[in-house]
């Protein structure tokens, strides 16, 4: 039986009994419960909510922490007040709690403050929902009052990017790995590179008149030459990259591998492009250190997709950017289930670009405790494919250096 019905029944039962038995004094027993009932009717559910929330920092590096402070005021009513917000699973609560429960006493304003600390455990732009507040009547005589207050908070988490240049050994004079990536000759492209001083022989149309007028020396716009070496990355973002859980998945490792590598390649003057396999979206090859922000933005928001897009299909879709000197790089988690499609794609890349594609195999199985067997199986698959390959584990610096070694 619902306890409230029970309560009302036993409030009136003594009165009925006293009438039935003629014992008037029995009716006195109704005094206590009826007093409670009258009191409960006098007060409404907690209401009149207001919330102020402050997030200490909204831009974090992976592993960094920030504090969220919430101040709640409840003006009216009596009963339980539940308060909380929904934090993205990519933001781990390390101290305190984002959910609290308080009791609002009658005729007394409730003012409370609480805080909690969150740690960024995965890259991306993550949300903390507006604050939910629910007021429940202490006697459950009324429907709960609900409000969604404060604005949602957006927290951007970027991975720590290792400056790989410090660890790259000097490869000067080594064949195959061009020290100057840009073609010195050839047709200038439309990709702006820099503004430099005028040199005799520069065409008149390249003069930047505005900059010249401002600084008083003749300046020209320099454009990238056609023929600049291009690295075209095909990043697998299908379910096969989900291994390792959502915080430390193969895709996360792949992104952590790509960011410092792209940063390095752009600094060295190469053109870099990325195709997200599964999403069917890409960044067409661009150059210049300034372009790095485009890659971080692209990769930070990149998630997984359950739909499969074969590498061959991706190559076909990105065919128009595979002109010139292109080094194709395929990043995937090589398994028995996708090795066939990867092979077809690699062969297609070789046929289109004329360059041998590099296979980057993300292997975190050993770190997941799956043992060496899976890694050995992956190694055998790579060897069967016969393409140059690099194994990337959670130690991405090692992976990047190995990659640079392979392409040289």
């Amino acid at each position, binding site marked *: 039986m619902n306890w409230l019905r029970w309560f009302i029944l036993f409030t009136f039962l003594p009165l009925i*009994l006293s009438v039935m038995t003629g014992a008037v004094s029995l009716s006195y027993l109704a005094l*206590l419960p009826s007093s409670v009932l*009258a009191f409960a*009717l006098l007060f409404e559910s907690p209401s009149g909510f207001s919330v102020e929330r402050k997030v200490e920092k909204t831009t974090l590096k992976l592993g960094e922490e920030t504090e969220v402070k919430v101040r709640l005021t409840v003006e009216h009513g009596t009963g339980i007040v539940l*308060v909380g917000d929904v934090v993205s699973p990519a933001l781990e609560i390390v101290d305190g709690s984002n959910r609290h429960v308080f009791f609002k006493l009658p005729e007394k304003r409730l003012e409370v403050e609480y805080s909690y600390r969150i740690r960024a455990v995965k890259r991306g732009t993550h949300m903390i929902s507006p604050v939910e507040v629910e007021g429940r009547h202490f006697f*459950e005589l009324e429907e709960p009052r609900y409000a969604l207050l404060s604005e949602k908070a957006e927290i951007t988490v970027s991975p720590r990017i290792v400056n790989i240049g410090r660890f790259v050994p000097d490869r000067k004079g080594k064949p195959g790995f061009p020290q100057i990536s840009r073609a010195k000759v050839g047709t200038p492209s439309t990709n702006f590179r820099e503004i430099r001083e005028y040199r005799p022989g520069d065409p008149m149309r390249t003069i930047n008149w505005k900059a010249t007028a401002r600084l008083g020396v003749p300046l020209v716009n320099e454009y990238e030459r056609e023929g600049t070496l291009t690295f075209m990355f095909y990043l697998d973002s299908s379910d096969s990259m989900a291994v390792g859980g959502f915080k430390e998945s193969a895709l996360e490792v792949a992104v952590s591998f790509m960011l410092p590598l792209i940063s390095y390649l752009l600094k060295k003057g190469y053109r870099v492009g990325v195709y997200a396999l599964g999403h069917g979206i890409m960044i067409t090859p661009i150059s210049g250190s300034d372009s790095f922000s485009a890659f971080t933005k692209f990769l930070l928001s990149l998630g997984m997709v359950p739909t499969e897009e074969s590498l061959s299909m991706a190559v076909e879709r990105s065919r128009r950017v595979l002109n010139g000197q292109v080094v194709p790089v395929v990043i995937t988690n090589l398994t028995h289930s996708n090795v066939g499609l990867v092979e077809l794609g690699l062969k297609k890349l070789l046929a289109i670009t004329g360059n041998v594609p590099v296979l980057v195999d993300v292997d975190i199985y050993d770190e997941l405790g799956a043992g060496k067997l899976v890694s050995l199986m992956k190694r055998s698959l790579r060897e069967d494919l016969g393409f140059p390959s690099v194994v990337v584990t959670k130690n991405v610096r090692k992976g990047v250096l190995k990659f640079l070694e392979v392409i040289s």
Partner: protein
Amino acid sequence: MRHEKLSLGILALASISPGFSLAYHFRGVSYGLAEKVGLYIPPEIISFAVMFAFSVYLYNAKGISLPYIIIVLSILYVLPYLGGVLLDNVPFVTLTAIPLSVSVVLVPYAHSLQFRMKNLGRGYPREEIEALMGRELNTIFLSMLPGAMLLVYLLYSTSLGKRPLGLFPTYSVVLFALLIGIVMSTLEKKETNVSKTVLVLRTYMIAGDSFRVKRGSIWEKGFELLLEGGSPVKRTVLLSFALENVPEYVVVRSPWDTKFLTKKEESVENGVRYVVFSTSRAPSSQGISSAPP
């Protein structure tokens, strides 16, 4: 252990009333004992001991919960009077009935309270939930105070209920208290001015950790929202946006999961009408679909 002690205390308290009520039937036992053993034990004590032992047996051996045992004791208390025993023959009839009348309302309330606290969901600090129970019970005790004061006065003026007042004064007090409450509750100003309506969608599903919301299909009585991007993870999804016409249902779809949400509750606060759509009722838990977070 503390809970056990409290339960035994409640059982002892609630056993007083039927003990006194049925003491008449234990007079033979009392006299018999006095004759054979030479020790006179008042029938009220024997009756109480039997009632207490009986209720403890039900509670411990039979595993019957406290509210049901209290019902049994209440029936036992009422039985003699229904059988024709005059109340005047029962000493302290009103006084002894008070523990039963208190426990009969408080025990189910405490049980309901315990159930409600348990249902609040994981994630709330344990100490806050424990403190909450105490504060809620304190509020109940506070609300009992006017009734208790009146009861004391009535017991005093009627020689502990032996010479009851006329029907009218007692009834009038009870009815008067209820009347005040009802009038006050109807006088309470309900917020009717709604400046905007906010649709709140709450569900627990597999969605991206950093999804973007896109509008999907629109049907006659509902619409679809697409959660795109991010890596899949089982999580609470809480979305809100202002709209004019509240739909009958909303379909929330991520690449890995689909949820069908219907209206669960509605509330007006500070001139804003919140319409909560959910796959289950009640907000607030990251790990529990029913839970605000």
